[in-house]
């Protein structure tokens, strides 16, 4: 426990709140994300998980509290700024463009060019080769790197998005419910890459509403409930049963168990 807290925090939230009009989506959130750790954020639908990571990834500004990245107070104006701080996000919708090819998606927004203006152009061969290599490194061998990305399976798309983030030097990788739409086998594949990203020294933020998936890879668990932090615990302090119980809202589950008991 002491050596874990010796690793410096990459992202640190103190008393962060966020409002959508009158709705308080997050209130008084404290969270520390460290390199080489998987921080799991759990909670029911509408708990505020997506809102929390949108603040860290520069999609939405926070309304109160302090967000520190590498110890510096920040207020990101756009996802581009967060990317420049090494924070990459794999959204629920993956931030992929379905009709564009795999390699064009891989390099979208960070294309490699060659030649001098006005003849500066895409280095197509290099981008195709690098995308293919990076995907092979993660164990994904696609028959056709020129195919529209919509032809890939959900798990493969997740891995493309993860590979992209790692390739572009992400230090913090945020994954919003990457396993939500996947079957058991494909979920396993994605969880493997989450562990691989952690072992490569990235700070991973893994959003899920499945405590079993989270417990397989998590080092640190934060449970949100209606915009409040209900639990913030290290793996050593928590069993899977306790985590499941917390997620279901503790007392509520006991009441339900009682009711359902026949």
């Amino acid at each position, binding site marked *: 426990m002491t050596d874990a807290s010796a690793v410096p925090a990459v992202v640190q939230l103190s008393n962060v709140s966020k409002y959508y009009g009158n709705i308080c989506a997050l209130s008084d959130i404290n969270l520390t994300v460290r390199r080489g750790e998987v921080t799991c954020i759990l909670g029911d639908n509408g708990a505020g998980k997506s809102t929390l990571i949108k603040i860290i990834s520069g999609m939405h500004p926070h309304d109160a509290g302090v967000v520190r990245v590498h110890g510096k107070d920040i207020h990101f104006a*756009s996802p*581009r700024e967060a990317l420049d701080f090494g924070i990459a996000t794999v*959204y629920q*919708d993956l*931030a992929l463009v379905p009709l564009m090819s795999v390699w064009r998606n891989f390099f*979208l*927004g960070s294309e490699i060019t060659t030649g001098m203006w006005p003849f500066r152009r895409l280095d197509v061969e290099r981008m195709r080769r690098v995308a293919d290599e990076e995907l092979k490194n993660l164990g994904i061998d696609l*028959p056709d790197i020129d195919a*529209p990305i*919509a032809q890939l399976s959900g798990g493969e798309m997740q891995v493309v998005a993860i590979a992209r983030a790692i390739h572009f030097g992400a230090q913090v990788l945020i994954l919003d419910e990457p396993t939500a739409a996947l079957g058991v086998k494909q979920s396993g594949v994605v969880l493997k890459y989450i562990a691989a990203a952690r072992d490569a020294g990235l700070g991973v933020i893994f959003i899920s509403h499945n405590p079993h998936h989270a417990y397989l890879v998590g080092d640190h668990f934060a449970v949100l409930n209606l915009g409040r932090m209900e639990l913030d615990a290290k793996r050593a302090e928590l069993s899977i049963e306790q985590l499941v119980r917390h997620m279901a809202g503790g007392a509520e589950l006991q009441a339900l168990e009682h009711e359902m008991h026949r």
Partner: protein
Amino acid sequence: MTSQLASQRVARRSSLRIFLMRPEVGSLIGALIVVVFFSVMAPSIRHPGSVSTVLYQSSTLGIMAVGVALLMIGGEFDLSAGVAVITSALAASMFAYQLGTNVWVGVGFALLVSLAIGAFNGWLLVRTGLPSFLVTLGTFLMLQGANLAVTRLVTGNVATNDISNMAGFNSARSIFASTFNVGGTDVSVSILWWLALVALGTWILLRTRVGNWIFAVGGNARSARAVGVPIVQTKVGLFMAVGLCAWISGMHQLFEYNTVQSGGGVGLELEYIVAAVVGGCLLTGGYGSVIGAAIGALIFGVVSQGVVYADWNPDWFKFFLGAMLLLATLVNMLVRHQVNRKQPA
């Protein structure tokens, strides 16, 4: 060994798939049909002089179709594109005539006006978040009215004064509206402008960062923003590209006819869109090609002249165009549906 065989099989099948996945497939089939049809029905269309006329007709639409296709791939429409051509020609003509300057000054002024109209369309779209259909419907009506009103105010007439005696007219005409001789046939410089724009548009779309961004903002603007694509600049730039095409097209009209009718251009915006859609551009954005839009414009040129050479009532032109639109888009849809099905893993 087996995996090598498997990947070979995939590779071989994908060469046909790659061709069929091109957005231009539907328009190529359509072009083939109308060329064969009118070669039989109106054999005189095969004479070099007729071919030159067909290409000229295609170029007048095709120049605008380049910008409109890029914009559509970027996910937007421009209903003001037709009257914006007239606005550009009017601006050049009246500016030079009223101030008595060299016509090139008017030409430069018109370029600024056209780019400003494009920038205004784009800015309004981005700032208001309204669909481009609505925003450009508004600017379409505004420009249509302003073309008539300002021309009447300045010249007291519905058309501009003849500028053919003014300084710089001849050099400007040789750039925008001259003809040159190819093996005994007169060919309009407009065709060269068209081909150059198609080449430039295709290069930008497929081989530059901006091209990648155009596909992305049209395919999924939120995803594009999330990975750092500058969507505002891309969209505004696309509307300005339509403005640039409108300027080239407007300058051709001005120096071809020496005067400009202020009420022109209405309805042409739909023909540009038809050319782009026939050429395989998805109405919803994110997919399409500039070459396809050029083939769409060629179909338009063949049909419009074919009806003339076949000595039919010109009313049939619109009928054919509508039929081509349906046919080409159906082919595009069917092919894409077949090709884009997820392959079993």
